[in-house]
């Protein structure tokens, strides 16, 4: 019969429509029709979608305990491997052009990520031998400008190891295990590895780190 296919199709849309109301869902249930998903949208600013743990946005720099105890040693591997070349690193040096050190490690004087160019590919995290850079899941960071506001400098990128632990517990566990293994390998006679105590002792220092202010808005 001509038109029967169209009518059946309209039946589908009608069922979807009825299924968006609680009373309609009860009706569908009573009629033994599939209820469908009902309303599956969320009204965004009031309710927010729960992201997967692996959800990645822009990278951040990890520090242990205090913000001057960066894991980054300014080796520039991520700068070299970054496909769109959005990372800019300068190692901290003194007047004689010798690298400065804190806690026996070199550190970056400048560490900028141009997030207007960054494509959140996670390659910097994969290549970093010091587990110093990780992917953040903060994504509500829109600004009014697209110049300096989108150039995240070192202070805007710093996050504590506790923050990393908080947003990505599974990944942080594997990273901590890798760091502990590395530390044990580097100093076999000393039982106290430098990193795990720092992670556990950073409860007070890290608490302020989790509330690191977001990059300034224009």
């Amino acid at each position, binding site marked *: 019969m001509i038109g029967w296919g169209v009518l059946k199709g309209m039946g589908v849309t009608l069922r979807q429509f009825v299924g968006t109301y609680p009373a309609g869902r009860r009706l569908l249930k009573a009629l033994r029709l599939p209820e469908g998903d009902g309303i599956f949208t969320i009204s965004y600013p009031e309710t927010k979608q729960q992201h997967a743990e*692996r959800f990645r946005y822009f990278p951040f720099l990890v520090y242990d305990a205090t913000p001057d105890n960066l894991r980054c040693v300014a080796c520039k591997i991520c700068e070299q491997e970054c496909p769109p070349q959005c990372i800019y690193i300068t190692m901290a040096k003194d007047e004689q052009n010798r690298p400065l050190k804190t806690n026996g490690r070199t550190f970056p004087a400048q560490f900028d990520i141009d997030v207007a160019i960054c*494509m959140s*590919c996670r*390659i910097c995290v994969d290549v970093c031998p010091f587990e110093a850079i990780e992917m953040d899941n903060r994504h509500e960071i829109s600004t009014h400008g697209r110049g300096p506001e989108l150039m995240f400098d070192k202070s805007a990128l710093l996050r504590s190891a506790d923050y990393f632990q908080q947003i990505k517990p599974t990944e942080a566990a594997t990273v901590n295990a890798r760091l502990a293994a590395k530390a044990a390998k580097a100093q076999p006679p000393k039982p106290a590895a430098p990193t795990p105590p720092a992670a556990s002792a950073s409860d007070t220092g890290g608490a302020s780190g989790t509330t690191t202010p977001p990059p300034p808005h224009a």
Partner: protein
Amino acid sequence: MTDTLKTDLMEINLGPQHPSTHGVFQMAVQLDGETIVSLKPVLGYLHRNHEQICEDVSYIGCFPYTDRLDYFCAMTNNLGLAVAIEQLGGIEVPERAQYLRVILAELTRLVNHTSVTGFLLNDMGAFGTPLLYAFREREKILDLFEMASGSRMMCNYIRPGGVREDVPEGFLDRVRGITAAYPRFLDEMETLLTENEIIRQRTQGVGVLPRELAVSASVTGPMLRASGVDYDLRKVDGYAAYPRMRFKVPLGLAGDVYDRYYVRVLEMRESLKILEQALKEIPASGPALSAKGQQIGRSPRTFRPPKGDAYGRIESPKGELGFYLVSDGSPQPYRYHVRAPSFINLTVLEDMCRGQKVADAIIILGSVDIVMGEVDR
């Protein structure tokens, strides 16, 4: 036209800024009344220098760029490049990763075919409804991609030697849930569309692609199979774990727009069968990335494949996706070329549109299933 009344041909530009052209694509059409006399595709508005960029980064650095080729099917794009690099460098893939690749590739096929059906109906004038039903289902699969890779669309997940990291706990159970629930959605979509008289009137006998032309123009994918040619790289090449999967290759009879729609629906049903088998047979444990793959991932510049070339190809949802790589022994590809199915399927557009009405050109283009990110690169 009658002999008594002579009129000029009318030239119309469809696109480049038009929602029905699926991106910035222009069709310069010559019309005789409403009938198409000639159609000239104008490409290049979305050219991003993909191949040259990838010749300047390491082999691993190419992967995030392949996500942006066909942004509906990031997983299969990753897989295509991974297959090419594995051939070039002789990298083995562990068993579990082979199955994970099959699962992710078939989920991508579901995403692509579901959304292209929605867009095709959008082109026909059914604004919104079928497209939103399609996007509702697509969203569930994209959530799974986010769970595994961290990103819904720009996955950057499949790597030479396996996948970047093993899927998180509970991932396969959620895939099982999707696989079990999907047939009901397909039934619903078919009730809505397959027997709909208006859709049949609009699509049957429209945009016929003859078998011989399809073969000689190197058309691949659902478009080729809708013209009745049995050619599916999952069967022909048998990459990943596909040789162990039992599935049919659906073929069309007429090669018109309706067949292209229906072949995609049948392919989705076969994809669900493949998913069921893969979920049943996947090894519960084992590495998801080979040792060499891990080493390449952690230090991409140490991967210097021997001099030579390799062509890796897979059956992407749109057709044969091939990556041709030439290595000169350095950490970067010397030559990197993409054989993009959207681009090559688009070459027969004029032949399909000639003699049809101008309104049909839109749905013929919609049935080709192009993504401009892949056409222009």
